[in-house]
């Protein structure tokens, strides 16, 4: 994977308020169903922005509004420093998008599909097609018909298509869908490289662990509204957790001992049987927790710490009834992603 060529556009992409993408009070209904209900997003330039929300929260709808596929019922959008209204389709020449699933002519090859796609919208030099094919790791199969592509290969081609016009703003709706681990790593590296060149990457995902390692900023939405937005580090430091495992009979004593360093509401006994006590503290205070306990003669048999996006996610979106939150807890993770097991149990405890 090499970074894409093209002009670097650090400052030029930002608006008067310094944002690459901003929505204010964005509203959208499908019939009676309210998909976006006054969404306010503020995406600064040059970042990877993780756009999170449970199923049906309105992520895809947001992408559709931003790409002119559907028209909003109200609110404003500012894109790359200028207002973006219905009919401003040329503004999308500087935007690359993958909305929901990638779409192609099945009877054409991957390369031919990109070539024909390049005939629409912004003009694209033909060497750019080879660049994005290379970037997506599809060179070997570029001449095969798309109908013979695997799910992940189609997804790669979809990402390649989004990069076609070397966009200043990249909108990706669940791009990791169907990618193998190598593909996910490659995509993450590519997106980070793009952001480091000053481009803005707006990426929705269900893979929280993925967003956690990739995003600089996170926006979490539920039921069409923003519930939290900010730099990932900041959100996570508010959401740090230190988990200690103590003997069940020492649990009360441990809480009492730790009260001076953490207020009472910061304790969650995640799973009494196992004796894990979760303390909501910045992750870097694990040592302090351990020292304090030891000072009172309570020795932890296990100690874990981390900043868990999933916990934050569940906490913030759990109360919204747009569907999904029940399924999250019940299924132990939307994508069956093992990486979150520890966090998921902590999350359940918190939400309960």
């Amino acid at each position: 994977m090499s970074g894409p060529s093209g002009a670097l556009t650090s400052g030029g992409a930002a608006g008067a308020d310094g944002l690459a993408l901003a929505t204010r009070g964005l509203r959208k209904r499908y019939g009676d169903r309210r998909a976006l209900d006054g969404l306010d997003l503020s995406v600064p330039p040059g970042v990877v922005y993780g756009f999170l929300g449970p199923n049906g929260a309105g992520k895809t709808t947001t992408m559709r509004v931003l790409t002119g596929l559907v028209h909003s019922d109200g609110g404003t959008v500012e894109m790359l420093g200028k207002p973006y209204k219905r009919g401003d389709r040329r503004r999308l020449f500087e935007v690359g998008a993958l909305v929901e699933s990638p779409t192609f002519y099945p009877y054409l090859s991957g390369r031919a599909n990109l070539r024909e796609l390049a005939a629409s919208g912004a003009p694209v030099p033909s060497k750019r097609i080879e660049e994005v094919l290379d970037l997506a790791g599809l060179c070997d199969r570029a001449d095969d018909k798309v109908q013979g592509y695997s799910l992940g290969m189609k997804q790669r081609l979809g990402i390649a298509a989004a990069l076609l016009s070397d966009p200043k703003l990249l909108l990706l709706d669940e791009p990791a869908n169907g990618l193998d681990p190598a593909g996910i790593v490659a995509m993450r590296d590519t997106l980070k490289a793009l952001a480091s060149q000053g481009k803005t990457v707006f990426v929705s995902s269900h893979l929280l662990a993925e967003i956690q390692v990739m995003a600089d900023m996170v926006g979490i939405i539920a039921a069409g509204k923003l519930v939290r937005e900010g730099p990932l580090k900041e959100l996570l430091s508010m959401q740090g957790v230190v988990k200690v495992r103590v003997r069940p009979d020492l649990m009360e004593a441990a809480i009492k001992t730790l009260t001076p360093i953490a207020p009472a509401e910061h304790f969650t006994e995640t799973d009494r049987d196992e004796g894990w006590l979760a303390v909501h503290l910045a992750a870097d205070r694990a040592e302090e927790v351990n020292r304090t306990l030891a000072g009172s003669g309570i020795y932890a048999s296990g100690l874990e710490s981390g900043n868990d996006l999933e916990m934050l996610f569940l906490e913030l979106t759990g109360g919204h009834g747009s569907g999904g939150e029940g399924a999250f807890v019940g299924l132990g993770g939307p994508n069956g992603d093992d990486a979150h097991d520890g966090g998921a149990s902590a999350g359940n405890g918190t939400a309960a």
Partner: protein
Amino acid sequence: MRLFASGIRKLSRRPATFVTFGLLVGLLVLIVLAVGATANSTMGNGANQATRAAAAKELVTFPGAYDRMLAFITGLGGLFAMIYGAAIAGSEWSWGTLKSAVARGESRVRYLLASFASISFMIAIGVVVAFGIAIVAAIVGAHLAGLSTSGLGDTATLSGLPARLLKGWFAVVEEAALGFTIATLARSQLAGIGAGIAFYFGESFASIFLPDIVKFMPFSVANAALATGSSGGFGGGAAAASLPADQALVLVGVWLVGSLVVTSIFADRAEITG
């Protein structure tokens, strides 16, 4: 222009293009050869057989065969063109390729009209090539029937041929536009094709009861626009109550433009959520 050229590249690699064309030409050649080969057979009996044989011979007798081949191509070809138009427009929605172009900032209307323009271009090639093949088949058919092909070089007919081919193309394009529009409204290939076929047969069927209305309908005007009075032709609308050719030609244009306007208005307003 970029979009138009791209549209042609896409269509020229698309299986539907060759299937549609192959089916039309295959049927045409089969029928013409079969008619020629059996024109002198003694099957059947009496007067019935005699009129059949006369009609069969007429089909492959030049210069009249020129017109009859063209009528075949615009008649059955019109139905095929409509299915073709519906397949192309419908797949833009079902495959989601319109979505990708719109998200790149392409104008929906421009994209669809360019796509239709490339369909019209392919139809022009299709009509000319099919016509050439049909003439060859008719010559062979005439030989099989033991008829002279001396009318082949009839200058009056030949000089009028380009204009008639142009009209034929225009009529077929109108029928393609109808399929294109129906599929756009239905946002689906299958629905577009189904509705188109229903339209085609519905029109011939309704012409039995409502000839005065049906003569203004798309397939009837397409056939009427090419009528020369003498030629019966194959397939499509009813000949009974058709409009004069000039008037019909204007209506072909009205249907064509009307379809494209409807497509444009719909596409501009549609929510693309596929």
